[in-house]
């Protein structure tokens, strides 16, 4: 059950008095109001304009990673739009029924990114959410944007090199397997690559990345030094 702030409680009371509805119903109606505020005039969905307005209301930049967390709660299928169902799912999950509540929940959502488990879920969710509907893979530019966003939160020192490498050498879309394996890689392999196992069944792209790092002298550990001595 929601903890209602003072002014809020009053509103609900008012509503209940006027309409004679139960607390629960009252809250539902408030949520519906929110939806109405943002929904697109011609379709039963919240589109870009609605989202922009929402961001304004909750004082969050649309590019802020918190929007990803929000979308994750909503189980949104694709970025830049929310279905009615998704919107309500999100509100429910976060216990939001008013804008004030919404704003209050922002710090909580940010904190979720610090949780290892949740970050992983959000990261993996991001793939499906960021890619084009009907496509199997994620376009490179979008992927890079997402990675930079995500790894700003969870520090991964090699993220810039990774993105540079992709632009220089790969130039194709990113598969789901590569996406999810990259997080594993960032989590388990240390930045000097000392515990990188060449037989470790890493996706081919990651193997290439390691080679790229060695070739360009970015990583100078014992491994790469012996390689150079062979040249």
């Amino acid at each position, binding site marked *: 059950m929601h903890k209602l702030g003072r002014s809020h409680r009053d509103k609900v009371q008012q509503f209940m008095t006027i309409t004679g509805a139960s607390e629960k119903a009252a809250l539902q109606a408030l949520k519906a109001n929110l939806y109405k505020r943002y929904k697109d005039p011609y379709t039963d969905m919240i589109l870009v304009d609605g989202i922009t307005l929402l961001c304004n209301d909750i004082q969050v930049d649309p590019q802020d990673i918190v929007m990803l967390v929000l979308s994750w709660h909503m189980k949104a299928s694709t970025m830049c739009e929310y279905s009615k169902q998704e919107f309500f799912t999100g509100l429910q999950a976060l216990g939001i029924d008013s804008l004030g509540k919404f704003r209050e929940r922002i710090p909580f959502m940010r904190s979720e990114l610090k949780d290892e488990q949740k970050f992983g879920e959000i990261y993996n969710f991001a793939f499906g959410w960021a890619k084009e509907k009907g496509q199997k*893979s994620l376009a490179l530019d979008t992927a890079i944007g997402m990675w930079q966003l995500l790894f700003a939160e969870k520090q991964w020192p090699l993220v810039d090199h990774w993105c540079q490498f992709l632009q220089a050498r790969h130039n194709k879309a990113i598969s789901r*397997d*590569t996406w999810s394996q990259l997080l594993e890689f960032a989590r388990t392999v240390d930045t000097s690559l000392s515990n990188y196992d060449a*037989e470790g*069944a890493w*996706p*081919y792209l990651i*193997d290439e990345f390691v080679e790229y790092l060695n070739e360009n002298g970015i990583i100078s550990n014992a491994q790469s030094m012996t390689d150079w001595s062979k040249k």
Partner: protein
Amino acid sequence: MSNQKKRNFQIEAFKHRVVVDPKYAEKTWKILEHAIHEIYNHNASGLSFEELYRNAYNMVLHKFGEKLYSGLVTTMTAHLKEISKSIEAAQGDLFLEELNRKWNDHNKALQMIRDILMYMDRTYIPNSRKTPVYELGLNLWRDNIIHSGKIQSRLLSTLLELVHRERTGEVIDRGLMRNTIKMLMDLGSSVYQDDFEKPFLEVSAEFYKVESQKFIECCDCGDYLKKAEIRLNEEIERIAHYLDVKSEAKITNVVEKEMIANHMTRLVHMENSGLVNMLLDDKYEDLGRMYNLFKRVPNGLSMIRDVMTSHLRETGKQLVTDAESSKDPVEFVQRLLDERDKYDKIICQAFSNAKTFQNALNSSFEYFINLNSRSPEFISLFVDDKLRKGLKGVSEEDVEIILDKVMMLFRYLQEKDVFEKYYKQHLAKRLLSGKTVSDDAERSLIVKLKTECGYQFTSKLEGMFTDMKTSQDTMQGFYANHPELAEGPTLVVQVLTTGSWPTQPTITCNLPTEMAALCEKFRSHYLGTHTGRRLSWQTNMGTADIKATFGKGQKHELNVSTYQMCVLMLFNNADRLSYKEIEQATEIPASDLKRCLQSMACVKGKNVLRKEPMSKDIGTDDAFFVNDKFTSKFYKVKIGTVVAQKESEPEKLETRQRVEEDRKPQIEAAIVRIMKSRRVLDHNNVIAEVTKQLQSRFLANPTEIKKRIESLIEREFLERDSDDRKLYRYLA
């Protein structure tokens, strides 16, 4: 029955009359002592054996065995001491003779004495656990003669001296040696070993150490080995003649160690005469000798094998990566075959066909053949050359031999699928140009490939043969149905089933009208009997025979390619044609057209066309005329054969790309097969299993396998395990 008293019968011992003469023992002993003296003094003939035996018997019986025994010891010892002196006194060479003579005497005496004292031997001696007479005699001899201060060392040094003399080439008295050594052996194996064998082995080791050092400084490898073999045989012979057979292994060990093992490395690597030189010069005898000698020492054979292997690999590598030899594929393969024959012969003749050497040969070939990525192509070209002309006039058995040798090389290839691709191309050209020397040889090779690689490898090749045969029947049917065509140009069509033949892009050019009409008739005839099929003319693969009459009336029959025919027929209606006109009329692709014109206008002896300007290359502004001055010795002139050539660089790249592309589905199929049966498998095992499955066709690249796995994950055939990212799971 009368009443008789029972009587106990007692059988009493049969007693001699006991003569209780206190001097009895002494008297009897004196008789025996005297006898012993006489025996030693070669006066035994005057003695009565029976009497002496009885005396000895009595002594023992009357409990005087002790006296008899000790008396024997004393007497014999005294005699031996005498003997010892006389042996010591012998000078120089007579020493051994004297020793031997005295030994023989002693033996004879000992036998007689033993016979006389046999009763004691059988009763007193075992009872009192004393040494039996014969053995006693030997021991006394050993202690008083052999181990006597003056004799012991002299004996040893004499024996060793004689051995040394014999080793340096002198003739010695072997019988004397044999007897002396036998004496030592009879005295006990420890006597033989301590007093002779051990020092003998030490001295021999020293001798051979010195000798081997001397030889190795001045001999080359072959000579050294000869000498070592001689020495070894000498020692074996020596054993047979006068030493204990148990010493053979020990002395041969010494020789092997000193002469062979200690110098093994130096011998093998000796400059200008070592193993490598022997291999290069096919020195079968020397190699055989080395093999037999080195077989005797630890690591000897493995050293030979290793040096041979690394030499072979080096030679092979050079052969294979030499730019010159790569220019002529037939030469390239022939050299490989020759090299293999050479080593086969060496292993057979010198290395007793040992399996380990055969294996070394095979693994070396496998190593360097695959260093050159064009080996599969070249082997196919070699076969092509043989099947076109090389095997002409060769007997059936010899054909089989050559093909079997080729198969041996084929087995070494890691990229058998590349070979398959080229073989198909070359076979297609052979079949279509009718240029195969022997159908049987072709078939024989296919059968061999099938046995080696399975049905799938050869099914398409066999399909090609079938198509050729079917086409013949089709042609017969065609002309049977159209008897009116018998007057015009003769058409021969080969209908190729698309899947079996190497894929060619279909480029149709414009055929001359007469031919075009004929071809259409054939098409309708064929499609009439085979509905639902599609025919496309492969004008880049055909040939034509044309009768031509030149300016001065010279008539020739020209054998040309279809393209060339199209070009030539144009000149029936024009005297002069520009390149562009020809191109337009025939619609032959530019590069082919240029080659086609070049072969008819720029090649001596085949220049049925004349070109202006007279340059070697075809320019797009050139003009062409019939060469009225064309001459040839032959009536039939062949221009432009579609011979299988070594591929040009771009063609090579293209073929390689196609091979790589073909491998991808094969890898995927293998992955799916394995995952389907295993359900769950970790990364490294997947790689290992896939590689093993594909081994018979090509060596799968682990990176490529990984890429295929990822592709299969993408397409949801597989997934990674949620807990262990190295594990893959099959998704039904």
